[in-house]
């Protein structure tokens, strides 16, 4: 007989095993159905009013933005050069983290969020803007309190200048549609920072100097819920050596802060103001200029059924291993292939590919089916741009989520090889996934982050298309998708390694 040993044939052998047990095929189909079904069901339970929020503003690219600051400005037509010296910038004093009587839910302590974004913090700068409507196109040169000198435009473009703080000369030059920014230490030697073309800059634009100071963000999470609070801050800056060709009368305006009145009633800081003092101006400003994307993730929301599909995959993975130990079938397997490592590898590859195909089909279908419902319930543009499968972060979330599900199924298989009992293997794996999730939901603040970095639950982070955040109830939002998949990969490799060692050493 011309029999030949080859690894592809061993794969075919394991595939024949997998497909020939109807219950497993049905469970695979069930994993897909659960992922899609639960996602569709819960999509209709999820609502948001982000688009109806009264402070909701969109920028020139129709993205949600924050555009609140104090602007001292005048109209200017055509090409121009505007120079200012920022004599000083006084950032807000350190906000009080735990103020008694805070109206946070349950009176929990609130955590101040560190925002590393270049749009955060306080800034004094000069700007050319399409009118004074909040959300309009702009270009600016700014001196920040702790992020150096920057040039920004249209809530999306940020260029880094020098790391200076304190006193700095800033200049904007308009030439047609192009704005070029410069900075200088002495007003004589100028360094260009960058050039940009704002999307809608009319011939006659508003030009001037401004102060912004992003609100302090506080969050409180735990016990299965989360809340996000903002406390406004204000910064002061002194501008002098104001030089503008054809300058006329300056006027100060608080750019769009509909909450200002309400806040003043509560004793909070008032909106901005300016006063002329000698050759200069003292400006107090409050508010932030920059992108303001909601932390809620439409992709994550649409994949909520993954946890249910995962349970079915864990069952198949565990059974694929433990069925070998029922009635001593493993002996038949090892009599046919005495090299046990190859059997384990073939099993893992066959289960892995099957689980990946099922998972990927499940998550793609879940997203596509849940989207229309979610849109109807407020997850609509502009606050929530409709995700497309070709968007990088969306594709990454789908591919990595399927990988997460696959790796957990493989982990269950490895545990099955070690435990040799279906109930033990399935229970162990489910507990290892769910228990950290539950504990992470309950634990307050950022405490669950380490749990996500060290347990299988961290793999849930793959479902997010948006960057990590600590403002949501779900603990897995705290870590990035790659960290999440790395944790699960490490667990699965370790379990498979142990299974391999055990197979080699023990009698079958």
């Amino acid at each position: 007989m011309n029999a030949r040993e080859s690894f592809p044939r061993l794969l075919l052998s394991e595939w024949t095993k997998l497909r020939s047990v109807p219950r497993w095929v049905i469970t695979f189909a069930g994993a897909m159905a659960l992922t899609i079904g639960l996602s569709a069901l819960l999509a209709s339970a999820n609502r948001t009013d982000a688009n109806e929020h009264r402070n909701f503003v969109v920028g020139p690219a129709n993205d949600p933005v924050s555009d609140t600051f104090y602007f001292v400005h005048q109209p200017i037509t055509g090409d121009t050069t505007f120079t200012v010296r920022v004599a000083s910038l006084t950032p807000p004093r350190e906000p009080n983290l735990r103020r008694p009587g805070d109206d946070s839910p349950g009176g929990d302590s609130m955590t101040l969020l560190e925002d590393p974004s270049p749009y955060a913090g306080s800034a004094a700068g000069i700007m050319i803007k399409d009118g004074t409507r909040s959300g309009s196109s702009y270009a600016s040169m700014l001196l920040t309190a702790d992020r150096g000198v920057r040039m920004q435009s249209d809530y999306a473009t940020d260029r880094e200048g020098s790391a200076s703080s304190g006193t700095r000369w800033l200049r904007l030059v308009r030439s047609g549609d192009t704005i070029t920014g410069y900075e200088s230490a002495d007003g004589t030697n100028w360094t260009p920072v960058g050039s940009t073309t704002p999307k809608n800059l009319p011939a006659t634009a508003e030009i001037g100097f401004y102060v912004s100071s992003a609100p302090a963000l506080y969050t409180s999470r735990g016990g299965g819920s989360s809340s996000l609070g903002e406390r406004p801050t204000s910064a002061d800056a002194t501008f002098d050596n104001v030089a503008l060709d054809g300058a006329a009368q300056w006027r100060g305006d608080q750019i769009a802060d509909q909450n200002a009145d309400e806040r003043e009633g509560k004793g909070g800081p008032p909106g901005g103001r300016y006063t002329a003092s000698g050759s200069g101006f003292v400006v107090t400003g409050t508010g932030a200029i920059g992108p303001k994307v909601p932390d809620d993730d439409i992709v994550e929301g649409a994949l909520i059924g993954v946890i249910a599909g995962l349970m079915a995959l864990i069952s198949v993975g565990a059974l694929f291993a433990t069925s070998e130990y029922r009635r001593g079938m493993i002996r038949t397997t090892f009599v046919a292939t005495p090299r046990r490592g190859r059997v384990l590898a073939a099993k893992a590859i066959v289960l892995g590919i099957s689980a990946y195909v099922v998972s990927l089909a499940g998550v793609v279908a879940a997203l596509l089916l849940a989207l229309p419902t979610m849109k109807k319930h407020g997850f609509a543009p502009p606050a929530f741009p409709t995700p497309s499968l070709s968007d990088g972060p969306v594709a990454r979330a789908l591919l990595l989520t399927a990988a997460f599900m696959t790796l957990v199924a493989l982990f269950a298989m490895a545990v099955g090889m070690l435990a040799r009992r279906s109930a033990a293997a399935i229970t162990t794996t489910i507990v290892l996934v769910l228990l950290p999730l539950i504990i992470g939901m309950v634990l307050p603040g950022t405490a669950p982050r380490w749990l996500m970095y060290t347990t299988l639950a961290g793999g849930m982070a793959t479902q997010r298309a948006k960057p990590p955040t600590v403002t949501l109830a779900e603990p897995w939002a705290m870590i990035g998708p790659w960290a999440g998949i790395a944790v699960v990969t490490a667990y699965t490799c370790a379990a498979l390694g142990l299974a391999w060692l055990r197979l080699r050493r023990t009698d079958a």
Partner: protein
Amino acid sequence: MEPTIEVRALRKRYHTTVAVDGLSFTVRPGEVTGFVGPNGAGKSTTMRLILGLDSPDDGAALIGGQHYRSLRTPLTKVGALLDASAVHPGRKARDHLLWLAHSNGIPKRRVGDVIEQVGLGSAARRRAGGFSLGMQQRLGIAAALLGDPPVLIFDEPVNGLDPDGIVWIRGLLKTLAAEGRAVLVSSHLMGELEDTADHLVVIGRGRLVADTSVAALVAAASKERTEVVTAQREEATAVLARAGATVAVIASDTVTVEGMPADRVSALLTGAGIAFTELRRHRATLEEAYMDLTRGSIEYAPEAVEGSAR
């Protein structure tokens, strides 16, 4: 590869139990070798050691001079039936054989061939969970034959088979040996192998008790014994005992005579004028020979009940 199984000084201990204790024997091609011993004697352990499933503590088991674990397409060199119920109950008989065939690169058509060979043709597309013990046994034999191997190992293949099946498997074993294959068949009942095996390896408590041909074993075990039926029992006993034989009374008119050929018994009785209605020479059955051999090596012997009513 010469189709032989060589077991050399094999030793295997599980925790405190020595399952196989310095066992050596050879299974040669062209013969059915019966592997006999009471339950717990170490037959299945030996087979697992031969098949590389368990690792021996000492010694070796070689197939054609090679360790099983070093065989590349082992199903084409050794076919084994260990436990016929080791089939996933949800899998069709055909699929069970198919994955086995794939694992060793055996052509797919062999699956159909062996299914027909063991007479499971009509059940090939049924799930193994619904199989009777006999059908499971046939499926296990089909799996062993799948790679057309020159060496075959069957652990208790007769278990669960109906009389037709028993006749069939005996014929199959003989045919396989006649084709030049080495066939090792275990059983805890000597009677099952009496008409089938050419050679016998008898073990007890993990040790070799006998390694011999069937004919030699029977001859060695059947001591000269003659049964005499006579109305003059007491006279006969006296005459024979005086001549040096050991005489035992087994019925009111029957004695057995040991230590004396049958023709001498006949001559003595005739000479003494004692009439007997029957004189028969007794030949030991293989079963009796086996009982003699393994007495003392039975692991789970019933304990004598003291003071029991007679």
